[in-house]
């Protein structure tokens, strides 16, 4: 069976720094993979190379068996790749419903409609409200995003990615900067996602990462250091050393 995502000896070099150093990994269809590692391990750079924000220096990226290494980002989205950002990236001047509407029409031809108002598309509105309900923000559909708290913006961040209807979803620290109770909310939302969606997630919070993932990849200094089930990784002495710290 073809893997959902297959990365083959991918490298990204910034000057003399090998931020990602010949990383290979495969994520199976429907799998939930956590990517962990200390700061500067190259996790986000790897994400950017996979999702098309950056071009890798070498290596290849395959999505469902198709080579997408040099495909522009917007086309990857059409192929079923979705992502969230580590630094919240939502449209603060628009309302929540408008944010979702942009995600909903982004992957079809309706995004080019210029001669009819958005309000002429009741299906989009309906879908936007459903999408907001899924992250508990339905009541605030018509508020501008600038009135939302940071935690609520993180929820919206997730909703945006979900409403492009991804088959593979890349989450870059979905719980970054959240309070423990807010983390729980996001954690539950992610866990409640349908299993058909393949998940690849960077997460610093070990409880979240290990609680959600089927398999864990540990990165350090641009390389894959270990890979396995959460239990295997946690008991790996090398991983314990660099990641969990030693006394």
């Amino acid at each position, binding site marked *: 069976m073809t893997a959902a995502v297959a990365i083959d000896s991918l490298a990204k070099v910034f000057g003399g720094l090998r931020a990602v150093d010949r990383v290979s990994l495969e994520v199976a269809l429907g799998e939930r993979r956590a990517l962990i590692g200390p700061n500067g391990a190259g996790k986000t750079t790897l994400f950017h190379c996979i999702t098309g924000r950056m071009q890798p220096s070498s290596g290849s990226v395959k999505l469902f068996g198709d080579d997408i290494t040099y495909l522009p980002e917007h086309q990857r*989205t059409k192929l079923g790749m979705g992502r969230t950002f580590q630094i919240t990236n939502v449209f603060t001047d628009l309302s929540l419903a408008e944010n979702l509407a942009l995600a909903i029409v982004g992957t079809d031809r309706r995004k080019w409609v210029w001669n009819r108002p958005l309000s002429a598309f009741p299906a989009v509105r309906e879908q936007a409200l459903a999408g907001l309900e899924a992250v508990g923000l339905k009541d605030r559909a018509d508020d501008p995003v600038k009135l939302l708290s940071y935690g609520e913006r993180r929820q919206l961040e997730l909703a945006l990615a979900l409403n492009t209807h991804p088959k593979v979803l890349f989450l870059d620290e979905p719980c970054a900067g959240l309070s423990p109770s807010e983390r729980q909310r996001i954690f539950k939302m992610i866990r409640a996602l349908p299993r058909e969606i393949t998940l690849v997630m960077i997460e610093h919070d070990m409880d979240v990462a290990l609680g959600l993932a089927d398999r864990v990849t540990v990165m350090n200094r641009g390389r894959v250091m270990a890979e396995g089930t959460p239990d295997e990784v946690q008991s790996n002495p090398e991983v314990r050393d660099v990641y969990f710290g030693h006394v």
Partner: protein
Amino acid sequence: MKVRSYGVVMALIAIAAALAAPLVADPFWMTLITQIYIYGLLALSVDLLLGHAGLYSLCQASFFAVAAYTTAILQVRYGYPTIVAAPAGLIAGTLLAVLYGSAVRTRGVYFILITIALGYIIWGAVYRWASFTGGDNGITNVPPPSVAGFSIASQTAYYYFVLTVVILCAFGYRILIRSPFGLSLRGIKGSESRMQSLGYRTTMHLYAAFVISGLIASLAGVLYVYYNRFINPVAASFQISVEVSLMAIVGGSGTIVGPFIGAGVFLGLRNWVSSFFELHTAVMGAVFIATVLWAPSGIVGLVERWRPGIGKPKDQP
């Protein structure tokens, strides 16, 4: 609903006042108001890019001037009728926007610089290519527009013509900015990287917006040449591009009435102040600085702020 009816009422009052203006205003005022509509339309074209897509284009005068020159040259030098000359002007200006649209491959300050340079190309061409464009003297004696033997010669008739075109444009523009495409422009202004990850080929959206903006600017150019009855290189100048951006900002960027209000304030003040104060451009500068400092969302933003509260989220954190 309340907010909406307020807007509709205000729009109807404005249209009624505009329709009644020729009954009370003298020719001086009629000329000024017509000019305000035309520059307002040009400012509106700037604001599609500035207020919605977040691009600061400083070559809008190019489309305006190319459309005006094309119409004037065809009509005066080659004797083509309005029915040919006016659409040709519109097409020429828009084609230039199709060409200049490649500027949207750049962003931020690079976009500003490249549009300044592109603007100077047209200014240089109309200024130096004297055998074709009339150089400094420009093209004079443009006849009033006439369609099917019916000439729009009187000032009042032309006023109503411009008003009709402007109202139709404003309605079309309103639909455009409320459409999914219009929303996509504001999305790009807010976060281009997010738009790309949502599946948008953002450069193509900006390119389309640039061409539409060029089309509106060209329309203003055609209206201008029949209003002014002559055209010279000033119409293509950098100064015009800057002034119309200031109109959009002073009036209220991101709105439809804003650019027109800005044009009114700008041209009205200039007319009034220049009659008694030589350094009138300094006054315009002061108005602009005051706007940026105390009313960053322009006169429209100022009015919105003072309007008796209708449950609008004003208190921004």
